[in-house]
């Protein structure tokens, strides 16, 4: 076991992690720990754009942007946070440009902007061009640009190191620490994939930026490595997770594969059609049609399929039609996604419509934080030195449904804030001791798995989980389906205890890591489903067929899920739900119509 000591440790080298690193490494001794090489992070998959009210091509301002974010999130958004994000968006984009990001340009040489779902002029009048983009590889450019700056600043990276535990001064998982008592972070425990060794990082500040958890679903736009590690580690250490029942299903995943075709396609004019060739979104969102927010489009698509108007041999997808667009325009603005259609489905988008179906895309929920990225351990107390930003966090700027392009914005705005906050905290705080045997829990878990005689297979359990989640906790949910999912998850959690790995080696044992990741997925799926069961209303990405309306009286509040020792079964844990009020500043909830 090796021990390192840094002022700030950032976990995750995606957009949020590296944006934080750029701030903190100039102010404090910083290490970035990432389970992937930084440029392999899933931020690189983001396509469509990053929005900011630059008003480069059309009249626009950050207040409209705030309103759209709040409305898009079905009023579960904390409006103070949304305001911060929309205001700082402009600098966030300009910062990236100054770092060298190659945005597409207007004829005047300014950053070009295009339309995106849910972004409107003057509080919903018409779609507005707000998304700054670099063809359909905006995320790729952001990730590369941030990494380039990290190289420039000589940021210290520990690549292919898996953080498997976060060390706190008090054990929150029992639920015995009284509110108000100060709790601090003292470091993290990581596993070096290449050598199989355990490294303990002692730190004054720790920033979690580990990204999403799409792999709890089977059909997803997310990478194999997006297993929600950061959320699960926090949950296990007694930190609550906020609004986990809200998962975004992106309307246009390649049918059957889940690979994403950006909303930018529709922003550039592509149209969704059912088997009859009808532009069905006209019925569901008469004003902005195909550019309605994702939850609405995804449900409309699922509904078309349910009512028998799906296309294809099994009538189980709809079509994204780009055939009326100029091939040259497609090549200039959407080169990558059209290539995906060609490579993976053998479809030529110039001439054929592309089969699409909703795909699990984005976790609106996550580790609750303040607008300065400080992690909350209940509705009010922050954990000293612990920060979170990006998809792993829930500020909450996305409420119950994130608008397209708001996530790349989120990682930049709150990544930066996290970096600044973490360095500032480290500058004033003194060191706290690491716990006795800091790595004991991790070592125990790893040894148990490696030594287990052939037990349950990781892949069997994972597949069962993902299939159950796709079937029971996707676009449409009911008490019945969710209960079925919960039963499945509980069974799988029990079976997980006897999971064994085949690879007994020390070096580069990805078999072992997949087993650990499965544990995270199971824990998170449980939180998602428990939260979804309790939320007996429909709002944003969470649609309960048995409760199809939004119920502001009962549910205009954030879910806070805690993992605590089970009262009924000693030795077991359970998810306890609590709530947190939504911050409303200017925009009173209204019915959400587009």
């Amino acid at each position, binding site marked *: 076991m090796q021990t390192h000591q840094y002022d700030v440790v950032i976990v995750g080298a995606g957009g949020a992690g590296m944006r934080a690193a750029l701030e903190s490494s100039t102010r404090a001794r910083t290490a970035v720990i990432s389970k992937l090489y930084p440029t392999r992070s899933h931020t690189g998959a983001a396509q469509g754009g990053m929005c900011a009210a630059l008003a480069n091509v059309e009249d626009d301002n950050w207040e409209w942007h705030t309103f759209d974010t709040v409305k898009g999130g079905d009023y579960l958004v904390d409006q103070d946070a949304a305001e911060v994000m929309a205001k700082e968006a402009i600098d966030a984009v300009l910062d990236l440009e100054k770092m060298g990001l190659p945005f597409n340009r207007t004829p005047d040489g300014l950053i070009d902007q295009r339309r995106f779902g849910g972004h409107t002029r003057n509080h919903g009048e018409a779609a507005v061009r707000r998304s700054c983009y670099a063809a359909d590889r905006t995320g790729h450019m952001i990730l590369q640009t941030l990494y380039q700056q990290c190289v420039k600043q*000589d940021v*210290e*990276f*520990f*690549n292919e*190191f898996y953080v498997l535990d976060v060390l706190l001064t008090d054990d929150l998982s029992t639920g015995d620490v009284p509110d108000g008592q100060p709790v601090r972070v003292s470091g993290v425990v990581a596993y*070096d994939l*290449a*050598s199989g060794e355990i490294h303990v990082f002692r730190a004054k500040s720790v920033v979690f930026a580990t990204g999403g958890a799409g792999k709890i679903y089977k059909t997803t736009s997310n990478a194999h490595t997006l297993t929600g590690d950061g959320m699960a580690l926090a949950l296990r250490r007694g930190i609550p997770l906020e609004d986990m029942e809200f998962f975004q299903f992106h309307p246009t995943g390649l049918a059957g594969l889940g690979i994403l075709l950006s909303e930018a396609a529709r922003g550039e004019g592509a149209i969704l059609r059912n088997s009859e060739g009808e532009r069905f979104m006209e019925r569901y969102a008469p004003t902005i049609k195909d550019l309605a927010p994702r939850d609405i489009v995804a449900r409309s698509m699922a509904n078309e399929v349910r009512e028998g108007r799906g296309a294809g041999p099994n009538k189980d997808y709809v079509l994204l039609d780009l055939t009326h667009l100029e091939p040259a325009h497609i090549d200039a603005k959407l080169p990558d996604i059209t290539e995906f259609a060609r490579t993976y489905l053998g479809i030529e988008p110039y001439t054929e419509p592309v089969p699409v179906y909703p795909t699990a895309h984005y976790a609106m929920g996550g580790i609750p934080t303040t607008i300065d990225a400080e992690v909350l351990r209940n509705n009010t107390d922050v954990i000293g030195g612990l920060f979170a930003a990006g998809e792993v966090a829930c500020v909450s700027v996305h409420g119950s449904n994130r608008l397209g392009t708001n996530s790349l914005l989120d990682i930049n705005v709150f990544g930066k804030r996290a970096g600044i906050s973490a360095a500032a905290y480290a500058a004033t705080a003194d060191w706290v001791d690491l716990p006795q045997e800091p790595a004991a829990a991790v070592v125990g878990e790893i040894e148990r798995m490696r030594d287990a005689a052939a037990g349950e297979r990781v892949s069997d359990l994972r597949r069962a989980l993902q299939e159950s989640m796709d079937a029971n906790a996707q676009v449409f949910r009911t008490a019945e389906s969710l209960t079925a999912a919960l039963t499945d998850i509980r069974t799988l959690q029990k079976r997980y205890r006897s999971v064994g790995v085949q690879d007994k080696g020390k*070096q580069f044992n990805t078999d072992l890591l997949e087993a650990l990741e499965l544990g995270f997925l199971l824990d998170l799926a449980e939180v998602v489903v428990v939260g979804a069961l309790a939320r007996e209303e429909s709002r944003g990405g969470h649609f309960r067929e048995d409760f199809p309306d939004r119920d502001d009286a009962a549910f205009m509040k954030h879910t806070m899920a805690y993992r605590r020792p089970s009262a009924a079964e000693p030795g077991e844990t359970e998810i306890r739900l609590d709530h947190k009020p939504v911050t409303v500043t200017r925009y009173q909830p209204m019915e959400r119509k587009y």
Partner: protein
Amino acid sequence: MTATTEARSPIPAPRSPRNRRTTRTNYELYGWVFMRASGVLLLVLIFGHLFMNLIDGDGISAIDFGFVAGKWASPLWQVWDLLMLWLAMIHGTNGVRTIINDYAERTGTRVVLKSALYLAFTVTVVLGTLVIFTFDPCPPGSPADLLPSFCTA
């Protein structure tokens, strides 16, 4: 910078440890340009040479001392062959140097091979140049039938 993990693979790395010393000279650049410039010239020179020697007249069967001597009597062919000799030797030597750099992995091997190369270069060029300049088309005491017709012995 990334934490470096100690070498873990018992398979020897296919690359020698990084010992790149920045050269900061235009040497490679000039070499590269020279390969191209000389290539174009050589194209003319060599094709002309081959044509004269192998195609024109009776081809290779007609080549003998008399033929060579006849050619070198003219300053044009003297210069032609001299240029060809130098350009081809520099071009070829530089090319072979590249090849040695590519395949000789240990510095020792490299040094030995390159020394041999440069030695061969020097010997050949010096010898060739001397021959062209000090050549006597009508060496005294040789049978007249071997000599070019203009030798009036």
